[in-house]
């Protein structure tokens, strides 16, 4: 039931109009960071104010909202934001990706492929991919304007030179529409390929940095790499212990003092859907080989359980 003390979706209509205008600009120039007048929200910077302002500007009464945090619908963050919108809009909420029209996310893209009828809103802490490399904001803006991105490749070169491979595991830089360098937000690089030619509209909001950007449907999104060090996603040796999925992003949870690990789908809805469809995982934790254990003569090695 909507709380009538607030305007629909909390923001006043002028603000929504302002943000929508900014969003139109962003959609018109894929990957380009559009500054906007970020409003004071009832929670602090760093908790998704950017994403919330975008959602608040575009949500309508007929929408169905899903909110996830690290792939899960039931973490504190997700629960609070979902409740916030329930209170200020009265709009129907869901945990099922298939049912949602509007999905706000922090740090994951849902495993379930999205459709043209859906919008994905990302929470972004730092919208500027060049942030650590070029401290001057003015210079970074120039680099974007002139497609002067050698510096980012310098960073990737440096990773390979020092560590043998590109080290970004999340927030992996991408080229959008072969024009703008973009930070995809701290999603794992595993999710980067999902951004490419996605039928859904993808919007990105950074409240503290006061910038938003967009990737329109069916836009080319390419992760940066070198010809002889091509982009690769993470792989796991194990499948999800609950539903047996071997194509999804897995969370690794330590379940006892012996260091046993449970690998479980990060996307809780996806895992649930699979289980409802009858898929079953091993239901067991895995004890990984202790690579620090000394030779057989000394301590007993821990029990090796079948995975």
């Amino acid at each position, binding site marked *: 039931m909507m709380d009538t003390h607030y305007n629909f979706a909390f923001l006043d209509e002028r603000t929504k109009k302002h943000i929508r205008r900014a969003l139109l600009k962003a959609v018109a120039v894929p990957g380009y960071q559009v500054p906007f007048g970020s409003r004071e929200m009832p929670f602090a910077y760093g908790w998704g104010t950017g994403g919330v302002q975008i959602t608040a500007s575009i949500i309508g009464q007929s929408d169905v909202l899903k909110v996830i945090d690290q792939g899960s619908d039931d973490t504190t963050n997700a629960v609070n934001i979902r409740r916030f919108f329930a209170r200020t809009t009265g709009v129907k909420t869901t945990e099922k990706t298939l049912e949602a029209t509007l999905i706000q996310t922090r740090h994951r893209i849902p495993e379930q492929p999205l459709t043209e009828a859906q919008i994905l809103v990302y929470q972004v802490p730092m919208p500027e991919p060049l942030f650590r490399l070029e401290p001057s904001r003015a210079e970074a803006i120039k680099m974007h304007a002139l497609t002067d*991105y050698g*510096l980012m*490749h*310098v960073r990737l*070169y440096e990773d390979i*030179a020092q560590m043998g491979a590109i080290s970004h595991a999340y927030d992996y830089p991408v080229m959008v529409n072969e024009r703008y360098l973009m930070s995809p937000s701290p999603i794992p690089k595993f999710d980067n390929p999902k951004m490419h030619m996605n039928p859904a509209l993808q919007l990105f909001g950074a409240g503290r940095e006061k910038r938003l950007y967009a990737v329109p449907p069916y836009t080319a999104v390419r992760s940066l790499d*070198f*010809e*002889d060090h091509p982009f690769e996603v993470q792989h796991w040796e194990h499948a999800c212990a609950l539903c047996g999925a071997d194509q999804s992003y897995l969370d690794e949870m330590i379940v006892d003092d012996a260091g046993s690990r449970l690998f479980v789908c990060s996307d809780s809805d996806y895992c649930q859907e699979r289980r409802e469809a009858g898929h079953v995982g091993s239901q067991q934790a895995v004890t990984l080989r202790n690579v620090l254990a000394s030779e057989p003569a000394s301590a007993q090695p821990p029990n090796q359980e079948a995975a």
Partner: protein
Amino acid sequence: MTADVLLSARDAGKAFMHQGQPRWACRGVSFDLYPGEVLAVVGESGSGKSTLLRLLAARLACDQGSVHYDLRAESERDAAGLTDLAMLSEARLRWLARTDWGFVEQHARDGLRMAVSGGANVGERLMALGARHYGKLRGEALSWMQRVELDTGRIDDLPATYSGGMQQRLQIARNLVTHPRLVFMDEPTTGLDVSVQARLLDLLRELVDDLQLAAVVVTHDLAVARLLAQRMLVMKDGLVVEQGLTDRVLDDPQHPYTQLLVSSVLTP
């Protein structure tokens, strides 16, 4: 002698406002530089030589006169031939600075990225121009490091771990990797130990010769001018008081200031 002019300064001048009045840091500078020519700009502190260098390299805009450069066209619609630098877009100037020009700073830290390795520093221009093969980039970096007599084993080390002379060599390699036709140098050896200076000058001399570079070298050291440059400008209080063949200016100075400068130099 049919080579075209590479760089042309025409009555170039730069003024800074001081207490509401313009103060001309340099004024009325004119010369034509041809491919393969090295021009030394000599003067003491406050002579305007550094300001002139920045005007020539389009880091400052002329308040009077102009600076022209012989552009090579990137595509049909680009400006080519001797073009007024003030007419060029920022994009074109940046591209120019990264391809056909080099700029060796007095302090290596101003001309290098200190937070990335030597190899990354050398490869940066190539990456900015679209090079995407790690192996080849590394190969180029190794080859240029050898060319400037740097230990190739240090390719992955940060420049902060290099000595001053090595940092300057790295700066030079970083600039030459795109085969520029014109290199600006701002006191390239000042501040280095004497023996290090000497070796660096030798390197510069060889590179200029081998690569047929044109260069504008700002220096207060007449010996550097004699060693590197065929031509010389002598500046005082923002004006060029004498110019000509280096050996002529140094051995038969005409202007009172030049005579003073030449006679002031200590010879061991």
